[in-house]
């Protein structure tokens, strides 16, 4: 590498890093919210685009050599994301969700999973891929898992989603949805492995137990480690080292850092300990730089030149919406009586995609390579953008409906928010907005709070 090229590369990297930092600046975030682009994908898309542009051969900033050097950052980003998602899953809260919610979530996730897999799988085979190729099955499962997950309508960072009393129920439901993606990834990395240069000869199913065991071992290790530091600097070092070690270990064994760190995160925060808040503080502190850098690198490894990926993108979105529709219908039929009144009705046809969807495909892309994977990445990133446009549009349409309809987030007044554990005790219909601001707001009592819901598409 000559000096000029080196300087070009480094200059470009700096520009990207500074942009990544500025992108996380509070004022920029507020500006995005004013524009209505607060979903994880749309808020992050400029950085994906930046990465994509910087990786073009004509620009030459993020060339293959530089991307290779930055891959450890990508791995760390995946591990960090898995850890934070796991750490926010407070298992004790699961006891408080309304009866039947688990079935609703399962069917809502299985619907998009099945329909996206069937639709996109058929099209992929039509593009000359063979059903007999295990890689095609992996790609189909990957797309389906990415389709299954949803995110809260208003995204304020992964580290800011821990559900607590008074917070929108969609935050919790989104977290449960993400479980589907993590489990999907666990199976994909166990059953579709590249074992050409490895020494362990194990059946595929054994890798599921190795993944679970490794996640538990790392979780116990981090749980023990975070009890040792006595200053913030030491705490940062231990958390950073723990996540880097866990995701490095996962990648070294050709497992997904997301899965291993997710399990570790669940254990660390669900074991009784006093360090929980400190862990979240550190995770929150690192959130924007890690996440935006991750998006830039994700953009850099994205190869959108193949038109077949773009054909899959609208199919992916349509399959997802159709699957959601089928899932909610099925759940209403199967467990509708168990759910609070209006709960299923409030489920939305067009829901934002979770940021984990992109992480999922990038994670698999970093472990293996075949002809279909670039299409899958394009389908998921392109589909996420299309999906976000649909979500924005439907939100505005619903917002124009008077009399208590779902309002755009930025304009939503301080309306009733009921703690999820009070849902079962309420005599009237469900009034807590499914998709609305995540911020904790005081519960309003009185006529407005008890008024029957008139929102939602599923009536």
């Amino acid at each position: 590498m000559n000096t000029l090229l080196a300087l070009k590369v480094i200059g470009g990297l700096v520009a990207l890093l500074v942009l990544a930092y500025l992108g996380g600046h509070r004022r920029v975030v507020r500006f995005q919210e004013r524009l209505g682009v607060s979903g994880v994908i749309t808020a992050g898309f400029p950085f994906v685009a930046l990465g994509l542009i910087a990786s073009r051969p004509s620009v030459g900033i993020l060339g293959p050599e530089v991307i290779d050097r930055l891959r450890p950052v990508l791995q760390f980003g995946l591990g960090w994301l898995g850890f934070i998602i796991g750490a926010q899953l407070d298992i004790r809260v699961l006891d408080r969700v309304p009866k039947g919610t688990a079935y609703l979530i399962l069917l809502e996730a299985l619907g998009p999973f099945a329909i996206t897999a069937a639709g996109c799988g058929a099209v992929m085979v039509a593009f000359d891929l063979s059903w007999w190729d295990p890689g095609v099955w992996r790609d189909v499962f990957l797309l389906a898992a990415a389709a299954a997950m949803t995110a809260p309508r208003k995204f304020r960072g992964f580290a800011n989603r821990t559900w607590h009393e008074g917070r929108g129920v969609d935050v919790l439901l989104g977290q449960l949805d993400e479980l589907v993606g993590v489990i999907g990834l666990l199976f994909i990395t166990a059953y579709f492995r590249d074992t050409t240069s490895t020494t362990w000869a194990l059946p595929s199913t054994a890798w599921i137990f190795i993944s679970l065991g490794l996640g538990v071992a790392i979780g116990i290790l981090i749980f023990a480690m975070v009890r040792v530091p006595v200053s913030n600097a030491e705490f940062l070092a231990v958390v950073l080292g723990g996540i880097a070690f866990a995701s490095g270990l996962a990648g070294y064994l050709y497992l997904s850092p997301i899965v291993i760190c997710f399990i570790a995160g669940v254990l660390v925060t669900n074991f009784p300990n006093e360090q929980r808040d400190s862990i979240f503080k550190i995770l929150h502190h690192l959130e924007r730089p890690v996440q935006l850098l991750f998006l830039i690198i994700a953009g850099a490894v994205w190869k959108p030149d193949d038109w077949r990926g773009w054909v899959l993108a609208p199919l992916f979105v349509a399959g997802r919406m159709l699957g959601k529709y089928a899932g909610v219908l099925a759940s209403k039929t199967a467990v509708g009586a168990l759910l609070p009144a209006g709960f299923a009705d409030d489920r939305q046809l067009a829901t934002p995609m979770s940021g984990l969807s992109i992480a999922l495909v990038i994670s698999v892309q970093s472990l293996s390579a075949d002809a279909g994977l670039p299409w899958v990445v394009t389908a998921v990133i392109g589909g996420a953008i299309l999906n976000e446009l649909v979500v924005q549009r439907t939100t505005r349409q619903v917002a124009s409906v008077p009399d208590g309809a779902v309002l755009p987030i930025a304009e939503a007044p301080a309306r009733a928010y009921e703690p999820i554990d009070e849902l079962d005790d309420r005599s009237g219909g469900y009034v807590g907005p499914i998709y609305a601001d995540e911020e904790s707001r005081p519960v309003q009592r009185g006529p407005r709070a008890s008024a029957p819901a008139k929102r939602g598409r599923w009536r």
Partner: protein
Amino acid sequence: MIPLLLLFAIGGLMQAARTYTATGGASATELAFGFLLLTAYFAARVVNQIGLPKLTGYLLAGVIGGPFVLELVTREMTDSLKIVNGVATCILGLTAGAELNLKRVKPVASTLRGIVIFGVLGVIAVLAGVLYLIRPMLPMFNGMEGTGAIAVCVLFAVALTPQSPAVVMAILSETRADGPLSQICLAAVVVADLVVVLCYAIAAAVTAGILGGGVDAVELATSVGWELFGSMIFGIAIGMLVGQFVRSVPRGAAMFALLICVVVAQVASRVHLDPLIVMLAAGIWLENFSRADTSALLESFESAQLPVFLVWFALSGTQLDIVQLWEGIVPVLILAAARAGWFAIGTRIACALTGAPPAVTKHSWIGLVPQAGLSLALIVTIRSNFPSFGGEAAVMILSLLGVNVLVSPVLLRSALIRSGEAGQKHAADFAAHG
């Protein structure tokens, strides 16, 4: 007990993973980073419990886990972590520079000058003499006679001289030391490293000329001038930039400064600037001339720098080949004794001539003994510039570095405690508890 158990657990997981595949790609780099960070931290906790400095623990973690003992971290892994070395050097330069308050250093300037002349320049002469005398013990001098041998001895002596601002900073932080001894130690190692950079550039050019025929004095002056003064000017510009950022964007300055360190670590050497001098100049500018209040920046920097330093010191430990050190132990011990001995004599002469306080006279030489960053950089340079003897010279420098880096933190910590300066600083530091 818990840190020890955690070390075994981390080591066990690492060993298990290493049996799976020989090449781990990008994951191997990240795995090594996490492993070194955690083992350095917990090893430091263990050694600290038996009264040794944490720094010794960081280094031991690298030595034991590194390619020459347990081989949990391979050479490929350590090579892929080179970026950490560069960034750590820059962070160190910035923080060391920001610690150097010229108003506080001014009263001891004459002592500092004396230490550089008698201690640093004196040790180069002494080591060159010792090397010339023991050259029959060193295979690299086989077939080398006359002026060539003398030139190589001088070059080698310069390469054996560097100090370690990193080690001194780390021990000062750990002991929370402040006072005349701490100030003079820090200032002396920073200035001494600048002098060594200058001396090495001259010695390398002269030696190359003698061995290869002819020295281009103009080219030599230009390259040295560019490396030294170019770095200073570039550093001042960076200091002004960071200062301006701190003044206009109060939040996020630490992240901005960290990014600057990453850039300087990557860019500087490619344009023949010294990253340490660049960031030192930036730090000195910020502390002494900038109107920006950089205390918040440096405070938040302290928490961010611990992970980098842990990995950096552990990486330094991985360079130490115990077997090679044992094989060449006699000449290494002779050189180590000569180096430390002359530092003790030279600094005492300087302190006596300038009327330095008794604690400075008695202990300041210990601050000059540690070696780390610049020595490692010179190893790379000497190996590539002088392939005929650079490889063997590098082994010798590494062995000496190994001895000094393991022994000197213990001595320096003890000196700071005995001088009464330990615990005098009340601000939280990166390696300090609480």
